[in-house]
């Protein structure tokens, strides 16, 4: 690592605090560098038996019959379950935190009932004395299929005579039920202004069409679950999940038992990125445990993870934008058709929210289509839907910029969304940092540095993610020595224990290490929504802040009792209680903590929040590439990620989110793809062939944290987890254009795709 002549990681700080904004060692760190931290697959208990899942070899087929007798007869097999072991949900709908959906879809994705809708679709579960016996037994289950034609892309699934995945599914057409069944679960539209007038006012209109492949979240830890259906009727679950309460509620719903009868203990989680929100294994392991009376553990293989979990939608998109000669966008229109996979719920709603979110445009139409296809049911993936959409918008913008001869950042600044800008999907922006991110990009040494040499080019792009708030709970108990223990329900995927604890520490005048955070089970803390939507440092952090305020209030009352004073006359500053009566009475936090037992008993602060003041985040990328003219391989020479964090609670982990999101965006842009055969089989379901970026594929990822405080959070924090994945594909496409002279209209932009674009260009 040669020393660069600039600062590779910068924080453009606007407000300073004692703990917030510093870089303490994370509380769970030692366990994670020594191998002691227990992840889902590490869990074991007495009497444990092992489960395996039989998965469909076909992408689309009707199940005529299932014969489990040979599997049941194998020595060591304890139980076999199929969808017949679950109650038929009929037409029930449920809202498990991700919007209203048909319970039948959730059940059928856990265990297929009458049809299999993708290769890898779960059909039966087997429990046996060892994993290998369970796997052997699963292969002995005989399924009689009636094969059906698969549809694998949104355009194919939208054709009038396309085979239907759900024969009776009449989707919504602009809010109304469609008149006949199709594979389109939903077509919605957002409109703003007058689109025809907007295009009529334009001097230049650019319209382009795009296709992006399905990609996987790629967390290193496969899905896992251990379940004991206990003799007292309680279902005990140990698993790796982004949302222990979602697992609890979904499992209870599927099994038809009260939520209080399910207890989920979240183990450490080895990555999620949205893909560990859905429930796959827990209900199956529960059924197997009920049948056997033993704890049952099921693990996915990596192939299972690729074929049966995630991925994020492939998409077919068109974006059209009109501008005046002086660089003002007059109109923008988008057509977004996203692949939901087997069941409705493609991430096209957030895609439609974000597609033009960086710009202040008067006339907008966005059409979104949620299309079912014979691929795994899609899951969220870091800013779900936004990366696809921004790839289209930001490459159209680049083409406009080139034609107008305007600086790419000046053009974006001229049209940038700001406080008060209305998005086509409805909301008016509160204070946002789009302009500040663009300014930081413009001022960065990277943007000012010359780019030299043949086959090299620079690209920029920007992206927006709205972030979410949602429910979080937190309790803080005060120890006699003045330290505190904090319990929360947000599973910690990227250092959030530290970010949450630091906010409590700031309020209580403690050091970060004097607050001991623990992520507890669903019996031990109030409802807490998923670790997702970039919400934990914001919303669970806010819960910790409020719980700490509750501690502070109670501690002041204790001081009042000791000093025989009015609570209003006691002030707490920098960890010390002061009596404002002219006396010099004062006590440190720990001096008062020592006296809690004799002044009324323990102090426990608590808070439960559902904060409205969510702050959206913008992220920008500057990148330089070199394109090998012989092979089409893209080498990234330099990469800078800029993002508005509002206030970076722990800047190292904010940088980590930016770097990690950037590299996922790079993988999505340059390599990653579900390579499907015509009959719907993923042909690259291993990391040898589904190639995620390795250390050797990348440069250092430089960062600039911009801080435009979020008025909806006491320290100004915005969610930071997601926005960074959005701009890389477009920035790389724009850089490839400058380097190789070709406009890329598909992802991934792997060597074959780049060479094809170069040859097509030469043919024209």
């Amino acid at each position, binding site marked *: 690592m040669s020393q660069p002549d600039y600062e590779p990681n910068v924080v453009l700080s606007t407000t300073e605090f004692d703990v917030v904004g510093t870089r303490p060692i994370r509380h769970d760190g030692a366990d994670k560098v*020594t191998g002691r931290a*227990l992840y889902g697959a590490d869990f074991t208990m007495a009497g444990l038996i092992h489960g395996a899942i039989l998965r469909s070899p076909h992408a689309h087929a009707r199940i005529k019959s299932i014969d489990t007798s040979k599997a049941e007869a194998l*020595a060591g097999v304890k139980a076999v379950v199929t969808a017949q072991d679950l109650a038929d949900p009929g037409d029930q709908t449920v809202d498990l935190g991700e919007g209203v959906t048909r319970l039948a879809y959730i059940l059928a994705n856990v265990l297929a009932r009458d049809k299999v809708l993708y290769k890898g679709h779960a059909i039966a579960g087997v429990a046996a004395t060892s994993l290998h016996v369970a796997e052997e037994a699963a292969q002995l289950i005989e399924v009689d299929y009636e094969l059906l034609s698969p549809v694998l892309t949104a355009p194919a699934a939208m054709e009038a005579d396309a085979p239907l995945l759900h024969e009776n599914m009449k989707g919504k057409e602009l809010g109304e039920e469609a008149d006949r069944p199709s594979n389109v679960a939903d077509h919605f539209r957002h409109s703003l202004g007058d689109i025809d007038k907007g295009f009529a006012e334009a001097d230049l209109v650019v319209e382009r069409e795009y296709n992006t492949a399905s990609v996987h979240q790629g967390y290193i830890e496969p899905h896992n679950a251990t379940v004991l259906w206990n003799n007292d009727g309680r279902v005990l679950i140990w698993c790796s999940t982004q949302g222990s309460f979602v697992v609890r509620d979904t499992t209870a719903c599927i099994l038809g038992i009260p939520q209080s009868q399910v207890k989920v203990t979240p183990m450490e989680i080895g990555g999620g990125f949205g893909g560990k929100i859905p429930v796959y294994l827990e209900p199956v392991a529960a059924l197997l445990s009920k049948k056997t009376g033993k704890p049952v553990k099921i693990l996915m293989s990596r192939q299972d993870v690729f074929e049966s979990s995630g991925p994020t939608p492939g998409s077919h998109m068109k974006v059209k934008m009109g501008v005046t000669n002086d660089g003002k966008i007059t109109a923008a229109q988008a057509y977004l058709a996203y692949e939901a996979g087997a069941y409705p719920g493609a991430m096209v709603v957030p895609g439609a929210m974000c597609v033009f979110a960086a710009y202040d445009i008067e006339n907008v139409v966005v059409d979104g289509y949620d299309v079912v296809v014979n691929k795994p049911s899609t899951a969220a993936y870091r800013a779900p839907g936004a990366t696809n959409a921004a790839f289209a918008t930001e490459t159209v913008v680049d083409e406009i910029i080139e034609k107008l001869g305007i600086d790419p950042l000046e053009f974006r600044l001229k049209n940038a969304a700001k406080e008060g800008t209305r998005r086509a999907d409805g909301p008016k922006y509160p204070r946002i940092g789009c302009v500040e991110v663009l300014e930081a990009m413009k001022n960065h040494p990277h943007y000012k540095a010359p780019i030299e040499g043949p086959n090299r080019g620079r690209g920029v792009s920007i992206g927006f993610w709205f972030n979410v708030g949602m429910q979080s709970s937190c309790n803080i108990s005060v120890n006699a020595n003045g330290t505190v223990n904090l319990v929360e329900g947000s599973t910690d995927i990227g250092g959030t224990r530290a970010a949450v604890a630091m906010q409590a520490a700031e309020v209580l005048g403690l050091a970060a290490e004097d607050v001991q955070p623990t992520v507890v089970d669903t019996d031990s803390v109030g409802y807490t929504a998923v670790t997702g939507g970039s919400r934990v440092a914001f919303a669970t952090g806010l819960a910790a802040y409020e719980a700490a305020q509750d501690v502070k209030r109670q501690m002041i009352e204790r001081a009042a009792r000791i000093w025989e004073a009015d609570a209003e006359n006691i002030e707490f500053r920098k960890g010390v209680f002061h009596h404002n009566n002219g006396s010099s009475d004062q006590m440190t936090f720990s001096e008062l903590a020592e006296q809690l037992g004799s002044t009324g008993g323990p102090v426990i602060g608590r808070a439960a929040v559902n904060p409205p003041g969510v702050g959206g985040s913008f992220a920008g990328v500057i990148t330089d590439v070199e394109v090998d003219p012989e092979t089409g391989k893209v080498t990234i020479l330099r990469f800078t990620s800029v993002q508005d964090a509002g206030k970076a609670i722990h800047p190292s982990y904010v940088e980590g989110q930016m770097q*990690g999101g950037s590299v996922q965006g790079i993988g999505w842009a340059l390599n990653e793809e579900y390579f499907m055969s015509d009959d719907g089989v993923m042909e690259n379901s291993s990391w040898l062939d589904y190639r995620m970026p390795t250390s050797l594929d990348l440069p250092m990822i430089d960062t600039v944290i911009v801080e435009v405080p979020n008025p909806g959070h006491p320290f100004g924090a915005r969610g930071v987890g997601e926005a960074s994945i959005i701009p890389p594909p477009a920035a790389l496409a724009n850089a490839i254009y400058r380097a190789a002279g070709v406009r890329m209209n598909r992802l991934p932009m792997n060597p074959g795709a780049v060479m094809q674009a170069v040859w097509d260009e030469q043919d024209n």
Partner: protein
Amino acid sequence: MPAKSHVQTTINGESIEFLCEPRQSLLECLRDIVGLTGSKEGCNDGNCGACTVVLDGRIVPSCLVLGVEAEGQQITTIEAVAAGSHLHPIQQAFLEDAALQCGICTPGFIVAAKALLDKESNPSEERIRLWLANNLCRCTGYDKIIRAVRHAATKMQQEQT
């Protein structure tokens, strides 16, 4: 169920005996039989490096070694990288430099990085990137991992002088 084989080996300096099926990988034996769950399974086909251990002086993905092949070998896992309660400089650097997020790949990276620094005291960024190319991390983008390994190398050099 196939007959089990008896394996006599040395793990983290301790003489260990276990019984395993011939088809069980060393990773499976370490995790499920010996009880050392610090080595992680990410792919079970040698592509992610989360199960990296040192076998007879070389780093290997333990999912690609059979348990029976451990017979008579010397194996070191993540559990032996710290010296008792003292973290190894690489572990300390990972903490100080925030070189982990979810942490599932971290044991493999630390075992692999230690093997590098045991051989080479001052590897370049390029050298570290090449050495760690069989270890996948999906959270960090590798930047802070590379910095932590460089940081640890510097500290280890200073400690020696």
